[in-house]
């Protein structure tokens, strides 16, 4: 083994029933690939060397309650602790049309087989702790959101966790994923998901990342969309020291809509990196992307959005926007919105801005008696509210505002932003 993940010898390979070909490929990648450095284009702005230096383990621990470690109060909540399914804390029954199976009880897990040098994807599969397979049955509209809580507990824990969602044709559902930690430091969530959105299906994923400072999160969502479907993912990053989100969306059917939204409010030494790929392979689709962030103190935000429009994928409307506010001279923004277009009858655009609070707007508010900090709070929260407004579920929205109030000492009433 010649890679630089020194912790790997201490880990036990997965005992889940993962297809052998995929497993072989994964261990090949792990044998031959080093952790990416900033010389690797996809990791140009994100250093992960520290991950290779920590002696991660994976311990089975029990938690008695997830009080305070959940996004919403839902009877359909599933709980994982350090990547292991917790039967006691998880719901037993689900709304009609929803089937939930832990991967550990599943025979023959089908998954991607190629990793193309993606060391984290390979690590996830080769050392997969557990995961979930959620099926939304054909023609079913599920109004209640399903909540998946992932909790890290303890120091230097590595959790390899996978969510598989099969939203069958003509269905509609929302999955809320909450990432939390308890008394953790130097722990690492290495998450992947495989999401299949069927014909004329509406599927929404709300991803709330709220691990404590000092922990790492690297996640890859792989999504395929069938025709006439709508897929929405809202990624809100509230805490965590190093967060990397990869979204790979393959739009395989016509008349699809893809919405990717992201919000990040950072402070201290937080580093958040959002990489998105929307691959338009067929004509007549729309994709919208909005990522907004506010950087305080020594934080860093990275955005890399890529839109492919393949040859003959005509009549594509693809819009991409990344807006950043820098509130500190020690904060950094690296933005790389990319378009790769091989068809002509398209409307594609991207925009990226970086700036600070508008002096005139601050002056306007101060002239009306607001203190400097109150004016800043109002402007920053209004800026980020545009993204949070994309979250449809009111309870999720309330949770986000509650946490922002706690973290930044605000007193925002979510209803003010409708």
């Amino acid at each position: 083994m010649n890679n630089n993940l020194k912790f790997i010898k201490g880990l036990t390979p997965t005992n889940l029933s993962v297809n052998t070909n995929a497993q072989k490929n994964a261990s090949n990648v792990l044998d031959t690939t080093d952790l990416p450095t900033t010389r690797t284009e996809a990791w140009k702005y994100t250093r992960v060397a520290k991950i290779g230096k920590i002696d991660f383990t994976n311990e089975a621990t029990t938690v008695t309650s997830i009080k305070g470690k959940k996004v919403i109060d839902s009877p359909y909540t599933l709980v994982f602790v350090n990547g292991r399914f917790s039967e006691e804390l998880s719901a037993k029954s689900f709304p009609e049309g929803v089937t939930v199976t832990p991967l550990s009880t599943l025979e023959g897990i089908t998954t991607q087989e190629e990793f193309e040098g993606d060391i984290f994807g390979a690590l996830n599969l080769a050392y997969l702790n557990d995961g979930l397979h959620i099926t939304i049955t054909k023609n079913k509209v599920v109004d209640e959101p399903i909540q998946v809580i992932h909790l890290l507990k303890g120091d230097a824990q590595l959790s390899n966790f996978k969510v598989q969602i099969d939203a069958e044709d003509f269905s509609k559902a929302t999955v809320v994923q909450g990432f939390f930690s308890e008394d953790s430091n130097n722990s690492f969530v290495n998450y992947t998901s495989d999401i299949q959105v069927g014909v004329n299906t509406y599927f929404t994923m709300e991803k709330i990342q709220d691990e404590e400072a000092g922990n790492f999160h690297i996640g890859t969502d792989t999504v395929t969309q069938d025709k006439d479907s709508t897929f929405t993912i809202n990624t809100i990053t509230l805490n965590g020291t190093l967060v990397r989100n990869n979204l790979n969306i393959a739009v395989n059917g016509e008349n699809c809509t893809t919405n990717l939204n992201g919000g990040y409010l950072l402070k201290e030494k937080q580093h958040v990196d959002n990489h998105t790929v929307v691959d338009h392979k067929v004509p007549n689709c729309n994709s919208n992307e909005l990522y907004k962030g506010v950087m305080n103190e020594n934080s860093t935000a990275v955005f890399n959005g890529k839109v492919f429009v393949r040859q003959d994928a005509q009549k594509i409307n693809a819009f991409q926007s990344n807006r950043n506010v820098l509130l500190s001279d020690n904060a950094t923004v690296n933005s790389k919105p990319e378009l790769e277009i091989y068809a002509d009858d398209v409307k594609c655009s991207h925009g990226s801005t970086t700036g600070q609070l508008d002096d005139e707007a601050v002056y306007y508010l101060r002239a009306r008696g607001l203190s400097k900090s109150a004016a800043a709070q109002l402007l920053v929260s209004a800026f980020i509210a545009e993204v949070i407004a994309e979250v449809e579920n009111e309870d999720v929205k309330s949770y986000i505002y509650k946490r922002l109030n706690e973290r930044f000492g605000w007193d925002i009433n979510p209803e003010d932003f409708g």
Partner: protein
Amino acid sequence: MATYTEDDLAKDLEGKEYEFGFTTDIESDKAPKGLNEDIIRFISAKKNEPEWLLEFRLDSYRTWLQMTEPEWAHVKYNKPDFQDITYYAAPKQSKKYESWDDVDPEMKETMSKLGISLEEQKRLTGVAVDFVMDSVSVATSFKAKLKELGIIFCSFSEAVQEYPELVQKYMGTVVPKQDNYYAALNSAVFTDGSFCYIPKGVRCPMELSTYFRINESGTGQFERTLVVADEGSYVSYLEGCTAPQRDENQLHAAVVELIALDDAEIKYSTVQNWFPGDKDGNGGVFNFVTKRGMCHTNSKISWTQVETGSAVTWKYPSCVLKGDNSVGEFYSVAVTNNFQQADTGTKMIHLGKNTKSTIISKGISAGESQNSYRGLVQIHKNAENARNFSQCDSLLMTDRCGAHTFPYIECKNSTAKIEHEATTSKIGEDQIFYCLQRGIDEEKAISLIVNGYAKEVLNQLPMEFAVEAQKLLTISLEGSVG
């Protein structure tokens, strides 16, 4: 009613042959093919260069040997065989011409075919032309007049002989010899180029211009341009290129260095129309150029380029905004047709306070070409109140071409304001409809829209060039449209 559709336009474009495809038959004094230290010594000896320059070359060559050819650009091509290139070819006439009349009539013919007859220009336009044919400067006009003002405008080799201290002081300070693969190659084997120095407080009264032309078959051309604008001076420099039709790929790896000292301004305009290959994608010039300008306090560097030629273009004219209050600008129109590939853009490095940069890039892709914008805007920690505005638009003419945008935006200062926007689309049917409604036929409408689309950049060109640039746009794109 027979209407002119985009399909027709595409067909016309396909059939459009390279108009400037001809070669001049002049015996040349060639070095043997291949690259090694002996060849470099040969070039250096041939040009009677001082010891330090030979060292510079050898050092660059040794660095180059350690480097690998970059592959990150969005282009595909067969890598040149560096041992199959002749690195030195000079027209045989060794003596300099006393007057314009002494110049080989055949060569004059070449120039007039290019539409840049020197006689004409001498008399009418007031443009001093430093005509570079296969690496050796043949004729330089208006020298006397410029000399009165203390302006030095000569071939690079002449500058090495006459003003070695200036060349030594500035050469390699903006584009270091180890900068990149092709810059290192150029630093090792460059044969000639242009040198320009504007003394303190002088405003150059005429637009300086150089025409490059690749002539000898199989000769890579390695030009080096150095423009130094001393404190408070101004110069507008024009560079234009056309090359004869060739079947094999020709390599062109130039280095251009601009230095704008305090309060100086340099305007650098390029029209590039090298042979782009035929409609099947055979032949054409490889254009791998490193262009960079250094801006000192209160200075300004403005790059304007109209890129229509070359099979593969790899070019990022950049500005290092080192001094406070300095300004960098980049205006570009890049047209690709048939199987051309362009990966071009700019880098704006903001180091000083109150620095400003503007990027306007217009890409037009037709045929089966690939046109990419790749840019970097970097705001360093101390660059307070830095300001950048970037706009890169792409126009797609056929369903087989591609337009790509790869902007890198890096900001480390909270007082900076950066805006970037990019759009990609084809010519709007409503725009064509609007023109048709007003009695403008489709053919004219398309040409009108394309010209209007590029206007923002064409307007930046000096008078003398604007005409040529529009002509080039017509040739490269409109076919029989206009």
